[in-house]
């Protein structure tokens, strides 16, 4: 039994070598002119192409279609007969690279001390050598929003790709979103137990938030005036926190509001309609009770980042609510992206999306929720989220439906690099499957 398994794997590796020519199993990535032929290509934005051809030239997609003559000499050809090609999946909410081992505090870099930390950058703490990164990318998840947490304003999330040796080379957007944990009006935990106190605490928190945003808008205006014409003016003192909020108040950096319950969602929507907040680019995250107020969220035009694999919020909620929440939001007209909210198990993103697909969203929309939708929400759909000529070559080849755990993710490309399909998990597998074997 064991022997045959070993041979199967060796055979599988040999097969990869044959159809990828210079396949890299360990070590260095393949890069340059690569063609994938005879695949079912799920472009996302331009339909599905049977027996399709996709060619890569360096970091970019050079051609997508059915014309084999596009594959000239000099291409590494991958025969993907019977296989599927999808754009790399993007997880819209993780702390990947910021936390190595969550129970070991010295390895946890996603939570700074303090309540207002707009100047804390996930980008800075992102460890490109985290053991969780290869584990994630071999599953076809090629991009993540990695976010700080804690306090009222946690800091700025970064949009990272998962191939490279420095945050600089991996960042698609180092300041992809400002994380705000919406002050809850619910009485809970160690906080006030009676509703009046909770309401009071909530109002204080929102006043504090408003004050910060007022200051940031003032700072932004003051700095703009100075920068436009510094001559004869005193240079304003620099304030790191307010400086970090300039792009936020301009609406360039999205404000990711983590909000869960019905009441809190309604409060956050109401707050978003305030005149002074009209310039903000608001995104909701979590939104567990979004299904209760989906029409209102749609009306406000606020996109939502949601997951599916959590237990129902209220003991009297229907058992399938968490699975159905993305579909409920989508059907109301909300733009939905799916996330895991994980660190080491971001690889489960396709399964979170799979549940959304099975419970009302349908596979086509659920795929969008991990590709083009997050790309649009974070303003990078010109580069990511679909298989189109000129876009970054982020894609994977799978043996079947990537939401199915029974399918295998066979090859992954990130900005054109055909990455080695190994990780701590596969390396331990190779070493220990037949532990005591000796060289043959």
């Amino acid at each position, binding site marked *: 039994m064991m022997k045959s*398994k070993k041979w199967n794997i060796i055979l599988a590796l040999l097969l990869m070598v044959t159809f990828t020519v210079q396949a890299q199993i360990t070590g260095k990535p393949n890069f340059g002119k690569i063609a994938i032929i005879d695949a079912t290509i799920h472009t996302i934005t331009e339909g599905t192409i049977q027996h399709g051809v996709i060619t890569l030239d360096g970091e970019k997609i050079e051609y997508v279609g059915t014309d084999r003559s596009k594959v000239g000499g000099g291409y590494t050809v991958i025969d993907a007969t019977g296989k599927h090609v999808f754009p790399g999946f993007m997880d819209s909410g993780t702390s990947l690279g910021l936390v190595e081992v969550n129970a070991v505090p010295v390895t946890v870099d996603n939570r700074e001390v303090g309540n207002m930390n707009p100047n804390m950058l996930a980008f800075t703490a992102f460890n490109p050598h985290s053991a969780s990164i290869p584990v994630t990318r071999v599953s076809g998840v090629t991009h993540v929003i990695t976010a700080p947490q804690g306090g009222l304003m946690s800091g700025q999330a970064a949009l990272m790709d998962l191939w490279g040796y420095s945050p600089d080379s991996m960042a698609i957007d180092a300041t992809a979103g400002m994380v705000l944990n919406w*002050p809850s009006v619910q009485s809970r935990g160690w906080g006030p137990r009676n509703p009046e106190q909770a309401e009071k605490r909530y109002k204080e928190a929102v006043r504090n938030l408003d004050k910060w945003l007022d200051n940031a808008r003032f700072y932004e205006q003051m700095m703009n005036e100075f920068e436009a014409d510094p001559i004869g003016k005193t240079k304003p003192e620099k304030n790191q926190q307010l400086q970090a909020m300039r792009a936020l108040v301009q609406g360039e950096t999205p404000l990711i509001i983590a909000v869960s319950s019905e009441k809190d969602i309604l409060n956050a929507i109401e707050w978003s309609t305030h005149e002074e907040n009209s310039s903000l680019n608001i995104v909701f995250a979590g939104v567990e009770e979004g299904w209760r107020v989906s029409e209102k969220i749609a009306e406000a035009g606020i996109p939502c980042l949601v997951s599916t694999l959590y237990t129902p919020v209220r*003991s009297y909620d229907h058992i399938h609510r968490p699975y159905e929440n993305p579909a409920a939001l989508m059907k109301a007209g909300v733009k939905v992206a799916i996330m895991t909210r*994980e660190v080491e198990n971001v690889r489960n993103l396709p399964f979170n999306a799979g549940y959304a697909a099975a419970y009302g969203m349908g596979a086509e929309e659920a795929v969008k929720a991990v590709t083009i939708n997050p790309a649009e929400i974070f303003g990078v759909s010109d580069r990511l989220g679909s298989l189109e000529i000129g876009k970054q070559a982020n894609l994977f080849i799978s043996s079947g439906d990537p939401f199915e755990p029974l*399918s295998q993710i066979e090859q992954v490309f990130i900005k054109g690099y055909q990455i080695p399909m190994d990780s701590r998990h596969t390396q*331990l597998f190779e070493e*220990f499957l037949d532990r*005591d074997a000796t060289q043959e």
Partner: protein
Amino acid sequence: MKNTLTTLLIIAVFSVGTIAQEKGSVLIQNATLMTITDGIIENGDVLIVDGIISAIGADLSGPSGVSVVDGTGKYVMPGIIDAHSHLNTVSTNEARNPVTAEVTMEESINPNSVSIYRALAGGVTSIHLMHGSANVIGGQGETLKLRYGVTQDEMRFADAKRTIKFALGENPTRVHGQGNGIQPRTRMGVEQIIRSHFDEALDYRIKREAYFASKEAYEVDRRGRTAPPIPVAKNLRYDVLNDIIDGEILVHCHSYRADEILMLMRVFNDYGIKNYTFQHANEAFKVAPEIAKNGAYTSVFADWWAYKFEVYYSTAYNATILNENGVTNSINSDSNELIRHLNHEAAKTVRYGETSESDALKMITINPAKQLGIDEMVGSLEIGKQGDVAIWSGHPLSIYSKVEHTYVDGKKYFDLYMDPVDMRIAVDSEDSYAEAVFNTFIQGREEDSCMSDVFELIEQ
């Protein structure tokens, strides 16, 4: 509120005439039968009469009055068994001593928890309700059938083997050594806690038996030539430890690292203890040949890793490696979330290492049944076994498949098409939904559920 009342009514109707372990009868026709122990039968029928599978085959007919379910296009598999759960505990950890063998989950079962219903909706019919992992030798477990809407007693799995929780590594050393400054602070200390308590228990047995012998002699000889013996008091903790040594209680040991797994096997070999299961066992794959040689079992997560240090050097291929090395392995949840889709957790063993689909299904049915000593009664579709089955809309390992009906003892406890929103039996004053509403972006995980109710102790 109205929903709650409706539910109560539904439950009341469902429960009319409920007696202990109510049995039902049903004939499922023309389905794909995942028998687990005898391959896949296409277009097959299963007949359950009075809670027992009485026939498997084609064109079966049931006794008159037995409800018939059309299984065309559906899959039938035995109910999923979760070998590691804290689904409906009242308390999980008695954490104030490194050894609490006398403690038991027997009275710590909440039969009203809505989480039972949520697990049924995932096709689960039995769970191993476990004590937590704060102690080296923790409390005794209880194997339950998910008969939702019955009493504590009626949930018990009749004739299941007794079990007990052991725990190695970070949890007991954190709680006792780091938290309270007592042994064990290290993995060295963990071993000695086990050995010294087994030795004390064996000595106690000798002393207690000697006392009974002297007492008997004293009572026979009433002429006062001997002094009355000094009593040796009954000690429940040592009694339980002796039952473990005697093989009457199956040990389920929370463990992660390969070295501590080897340690426990050495200790158990010294005391002649057999038939035990390593729970979690993230590094079991590193010592799979040794585990196989000792005939020990493993029950693991499909893919949890890196949330704490002792699982940092582990792999989602664990289950496959164990299986390929001949270890009887199960996939467990230890989580009220994962228990809702253990089918999908088992399917991950196919993704990670290409375990066969049939072996993947064994890991959530017959294998956990073996580990709990209930494999003669459940865990496969076999004539004479108990009628714990689930009907799935498609292949149970597909992410698109849903459980349509779940039966325990032939009685339907879950029906996808008659599934009210509010399925609470009782309103729990402790159950504050606001606690679950967090307004935080990223969640992450730093602990297994085995440490429930212990945090307060450590934080103090």
